[in-house]
């Protein structure tokens, strides 16, 4: 479990990014972290990885303090940054040198994932495109079998088939012991793989709900006219009508439109969160 309590962080003394961040990530969940540029998504991932140190407050990852960067902690966490540069080696050499640091590293998984991503072991990493390098890093990260996998914009640079492969891989290699945190702007790439959606704005968590709760409380529809639709929380005009987010009234489950939900939260997070509270109150 990852527990963040009253965390304060700033890059500069005057501009505090997080003033009192409180959030918990439970094992067995794939979290999607959304937010505007500069909202603090990447910073949050770096704080969890121990790449940045909080000014105050607690960050606890499976009992470890990330800022100490203890070897046992580092063996169980992997961070895929948005941008990175590999050393000048072949894939085989890179894997050989780095796999030994991770006690749970599975070479057969690595081989399988390299095949899935159409990469060959004897290729020089520097001759690969950015997308191919990203695929290599994703394959390596999954193969480490780390309990915590932090991914910052993992689908940036991936072509369309690879995005689909990525979703398939995340779904296949996720298990109840692991926590995956995926920060992204490309919400459509996370379709069907998320368990919980978290939205961060101005250093605060403004939305934190599981997919189950979202399906239970909200309804995503396409309508021709908003005025005829009851309980509308948010409407987005599009060609031929509107995409609307409403309170759920019936029992039918609708497919979650993360993009629409994200826009609704950005437009009025209190209204969207209220939909969950209303439902909870009515249950009580």
């Amino acid at each position: 479990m990852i527990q963040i309590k009253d965390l304060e962080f700033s890059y500069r003394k005057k501009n505090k990014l997080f003033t009192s961040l409180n959030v918990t990530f439970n094992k067995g969940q794939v979290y999607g972290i959304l937010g505007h540029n500069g909202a603090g998504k990447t910073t949050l991932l770096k704080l969890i990885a121990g790449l940045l140190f909080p000014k105050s407050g607690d960050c606890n990852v499976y009992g470890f303090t990330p800022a100490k960067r203890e070897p046992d902690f580092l063996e169980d966490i992997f961070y895929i940054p948005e941008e990175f540069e590999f050393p000048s080696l072949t894939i085989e050499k890179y894997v050989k040198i780095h796999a030994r640091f991770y006690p749970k590293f599975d070479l057969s998984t690595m081989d399988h994932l390299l095949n899935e991503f159409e990469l060959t072991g004897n290729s020089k990493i520097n001759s690969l495109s950015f997308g191919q390098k990203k695929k290599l890093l994703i394959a390596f990260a999954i193969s480490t079998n780390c309990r915590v996998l932090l991914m910052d914009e993992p689908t940036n640079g991936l072509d369309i088939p690879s995005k689909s492969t990525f979703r398939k891989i995340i779904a296949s290699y996720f298990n109840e012991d692991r926590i995956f945190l995926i920060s992204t702007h490309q919400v459509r790439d996370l379709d069907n793989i998320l368990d919980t959606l978290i939205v961060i704005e101005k250093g605060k968590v403004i939305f934190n709900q599981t997919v189950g709760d979202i399906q239970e409380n909200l309804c995503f529809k396409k309508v021709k006219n908003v005025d005829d639709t009851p309980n509308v929380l948010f409407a987005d005009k599009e060609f031929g009508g509107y995409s609307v987010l409403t309170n759920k009234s019936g029992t039918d489950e609708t497919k979650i439109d993360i993009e629409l939900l994200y826009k609704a939260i950005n437009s009025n997070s209190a209204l969207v969160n209220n939909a969950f509270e209303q439902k909870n109150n009515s249950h009580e």
Partner: protein
Amino acid sequence: MNKYFSLKRFSHLLKREIHINIKRDLLIIGAMYSLFTLVIFLVFEFSEEVYNEKFFEEFHFVTYIIMLFVGSVFITSFSFIELRDKLKSHFYLLTPGSNFEKFLVNILISFLGYALFMLISYLIYSSIFNWITWELYQLPFKPLNIASSDFLLVMQIYIIAHSVFFLGAITFKKYPLVLTPIAGFILLTLFSVINNIMAKLILSDMSADNQFDNMGLSEFFLGYEGLAKATVFYVGPLILWFIAYLKLNEKEH
């Protein structure tokens, strides 16, 4: 497993470091040898200077020291090079190993590894050099003599130089090779200025040495010469290495 040091992790880190950075280090050493060979043979070819016995005796010792120091400055300044690149530093910081192990690996390569490599490679180089210069120019160069009394002093200065540039390598985000000597010069100048001001304030005279003599302090300090040398040659580098280790612990992305 021990969270500060494990031989297994240390050897993994050492192998990683060698695979990723050794090519650059070897290029530096190779370039140094090549440049020196080229220059010295051009000198032999075109110079009409008459060399004396001392020249043949000390040639390799002086050359070895120059190469040892020049190479050390470069190689030590390239320590922790991944930390200076935003696109690479997260890989380094998150590689499972303690900061102490990462610190030791860099010391081992840039200090002991380099010194040992230079010694062996120079012994081989000087033998080949002597053979060629004898065959081509009949110049009787003597082999490198590390049993010389000056060798200990050279190694002591080498330790100080390493610790200074090692600290510079982890302190400066860019151009430590240039910034370390500049920072060192500024610090020494400041120290010297403060020293002079203090001498003037306390002894009311800039000629502190004379005042020391008048007060009998010179003799007092001479009694501690050994201690002073030990501090400069051994304690000083240890302190600088320790500061470098603390700086590594503080590194963020």
